[in-house]
Structure formats: structure tokens, C-alpha cells
């Protein structure tokens, strides 16, 4: 737990940290995703996945970045209204498939990378899980 405290202090996110429902949640007002990824990787954390969902109240997309640090599950949460976020694929190859999947499911654009089709076929439209009225 001291490692988590140290890393969150380094990132200036200690205030946004709480433990609930099976994870350590870090939900700051704004999250520097690449800085978070670099700091976690430097301390030996393992990237697990990203959960994305479209929020019905404002149409923004919420992304939860899940990491494992010595058995502790860390979840960093951010929101994007414009559906644009920086990619961490170059820092963390493990994020390749999930960024491609979220691009296909929710039409989120991860800046700084190219896409090949993952679950949809070549040439098919992206955003297959975006509700029709928002597509």
C-alpha cells in the first residue's frame, strides 16, 4: 500500500484515491494518462485492461484504466466528451488490443497510433456499442 501511496503522491493524485467495490479507485478531475502509465510501468505495475462505457447523462465516454501492483487492483478513471485521448500503446504494448477494441466499440480516437481491425471486419464502421441516437 505504501507503493501506491508514493506513486499517487508523485502523480499528485492522492486526494482522488479511495478504496471500494474490489479496487483502489483514483478518479481525479483531470488525468494525464501517459504520465500515469509511465509512472506505473516504472514501478513494475502490470497493465490489465481498460473498461469503456458511454455515459447516458451527458454522452461522454468514461474510461477506467485497470492496473495490478503487487496484487492490488488500481483503477484510474477519466472521461472524454470529444472521444479523443492519448494512446499509451507505445509505452505499453499490452494496451494495443484494448485500444483498438474501444475504438471499434465506442469510436474513441487514441492519438498517436494507427489501427488495424480487431473484432470488426476491414472497412466496417466503428462505434458498434454507441447507442443509435448518439451515433
Amino acid at each position, binding site marked *: 500500500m505504501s507503493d501506491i501511496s508514493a506513486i499517487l503522491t508523485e502523480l499528485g493524485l492522492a486526494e482522488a484515491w479511495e478504496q471500494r467495490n*474490489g479496487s483502489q479507485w483514483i478518479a481525479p478531475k483531470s488525468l494525464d494518462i501517459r504520465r500515469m502509465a509511465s509512472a506505473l510501468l516504472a514501478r513494475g505495475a502490470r497493465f*490489465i*485492461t481498460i*473498461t469503456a462505457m458511454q455515459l447516458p447523462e451527458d454522452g461522454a465516454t468514461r474510461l477506467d484504466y485497470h492496473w495490478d501492483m*503487487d*496484487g492490488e487492483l488500481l483503477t484510474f478513471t477519466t472521461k472524454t466528451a470529444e472521444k479523443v485521448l492519448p494512446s499509451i500503446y507505445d509505452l505499453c504494448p*499490452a494496451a494495443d488490443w484494448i485500444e483498438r477494441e474501444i475504438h471499434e466499440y465506442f469510436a474513441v480516437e487514441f492519438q498517436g497510433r494507427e489501427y488495424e*481491425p480487431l*473484432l*470488426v471486419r476491414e472497412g466496417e464502421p466503428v462505434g458498434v456499442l454507441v447507442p443509435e441516437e448518439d451515433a
Partner: protein
Amino acid sequence: MSYRIPMGPYHPALEEPYKLNLICEGERVRDTELRIGFNFRGIEYLAERRNFVQVIALMERVCGICSNVHTLSVCQALERLAGIEPAPRALYIRVIVAELERLHSHVLWAGIAGKVMGFKTMFMTCFLLREKVMEALEIISGNRVNYAMNRVGGVNRDIDNPDSVLAVVDFLEREVNRVIIPVFASNRTLLERCAGVGVLTQEQAKAYGVVGPVARASGVPEDIRRAAPYAAYSEMKFEVPVETSGDVRARLLVRALETLQSCCILRQALKNLPAGDWWGPTEEVEVPEGTGISRVEGPRGEVLYSVTADGENDTPRRVKVRTPTYANMPSIRLMMRGARLADAPLIQASIDPCYSCTDR
């Protein structure tokens, strides 16, 4: 001069579809492109249109072999959200079914690996053992696959005769020690076929975030049962087998040794099964607003479920599933680099891939 060989989507080694494009120079694979999505069923989308009870049954269909880990994960996520702690007997039963499922998966895979290597006797032997595991699961659940054991707050069936399952565990442990371990650890033909083939280094395994036996065969000692215990695993004594060579042989050996550890856990859980309630809440469970996350060590590695509820509707707002093969499969590209073309089916089979899990 390089040339491209498409392998799949109907695969020569396994019965599920996915595609590899192998870019070769002579007999050596220079690079590999992976194509998945042939089993895409939109299960996460469907989950948002089912109530919380139906979601459990739906998630049991993510995978045919490791169906129990999916219902266990989704139930744990809902329990965390609703603040429910199952009774000790239910937690022990969950461990028993989870370990039987691991035995089922590992023994089945050992047989498939034997078949891919042309070792048909091993295939037959392993499938005979697998039948015994399925008999044990049938004794407990009434089903050979899709056991429907988990419910929010407990399990759907009790184990009223642990001795009948213990007899199967004794038999399996004896046969694994007699047949599988000696073959995978020291058979000369098998070693020549697998040693040094499809290597994934520890550094690569960490960078790609691989999980389960694939990670442990590359010297990464990750096991959620030990690192973040769930159900009754904190009360079980067991070892986590780790190999460092990162090749196909290491992956074979780690799984074989894990079958013995599963027998060890099963014996403890069956002998110390606590008395008392196993069913859990009899009233409908209220799921409040929020997100519950659960992780389980499936046979192929870590499974993660994130379930979000809005507190108003009886359907989840979002169910996210991260399966182990999804984490492991991209590393095939690294394992294939420089490999002999003839080893390609064995290398990709060595991660024990599940494409229906991966595509969901």
C-alpha cells in the same frame, strides 16, 4: 525473399477459428499477423439487455471449458457492489468447482498438446483422465459443462458427499504423477520437440502483460489466487509452479505441475468443508449504483469483470470482460519470430488459446 502463408481461420490444430498470416523467409517465420473476431457474439452488448440473474447465465456461455470462472467473477463483482459476503461453505464449494475446472482445462489441454505433437497415446490418456474430472463435476452439479454453480451471495448446489469427489482426486493425482509429469518433464522425444521452441522472455511477458501459466512459464510468478485471494483461497496451502525458460516445454510443465497443486487444494477444501449455509440471500438482491470489479485466476490466467449498475434498473449499465487469452494472444507474435514454420501450430497451441473467450 519473403512470402506469406495464411493459416486459418479454420485451424489445423484447434477447433476454433482465428487467422495467422505468417511472413516467412525460407523455413523461418519472420513476422506474424493475427486476426481475431470470427467468434464475436456481442456478449457485452447482450449483457446490458439482461437482468442481473440472466447475466450470470449469459456469462457462463463466454467459454465452454472455463465457464465457471465467468459466473464466479460476475457474481463476485455483484457481491462487492451489493456488499454481500457469501457463507464459508459456499466459498469452499466455489474453490472446489474452480479447481476441478482447472483440472478439466489443463488435462484437456495436455491431450491437445500431445495430439499437436503427434503423440496420440498421450491424447487418449489425457482424455480418459478428463472424463474422470467431468464425472466429478457431474456428481456435484449434474452437468459436464456449464455447471451453473454460482449465484449472488452463494452457490446453487451443495456438495453432500465430498468423499465421492475425493476418490476422483486421489485417482487423478496418482495418474498425473504416473503418466503426465514423467512424460512432460523427461521424455526425450517431447523435449526435443518443445525445448527452446516459441520462447517468450520474462521481459517480453511483462511488457505484453501476459497472465496465467504462460506468464509463469516465463518466470513471472503471477497468480491471483495468491496475490489477491478470493473465495476461500486464503485458507488453502499451495505452491505456484514457475519455470524460467519461457518455451513450449515450460508451458507444458507449468500446467502439469499445476494439476498436482489443484489436487492438493481440492483435498484441503473437501476435507475441511465447513458446515452451514451455502445458498445465500433468499430475497432478490438490490444492486446499488456503482461499479464492482472482480478478478479470478482461471485455468488460462486472470479473468477480470467490471460490472456497472445505475441503481434504478435491474439490468447492468455495462459489463466488461477481460479474458486471459485476450491478454496472452498478442504475445504469439513474439514467440513466432525466428521459429520454424513447422512449429507454428504447436507454438500457438502452447498458450492454450480460447477464441470464443477472446472474441466474446
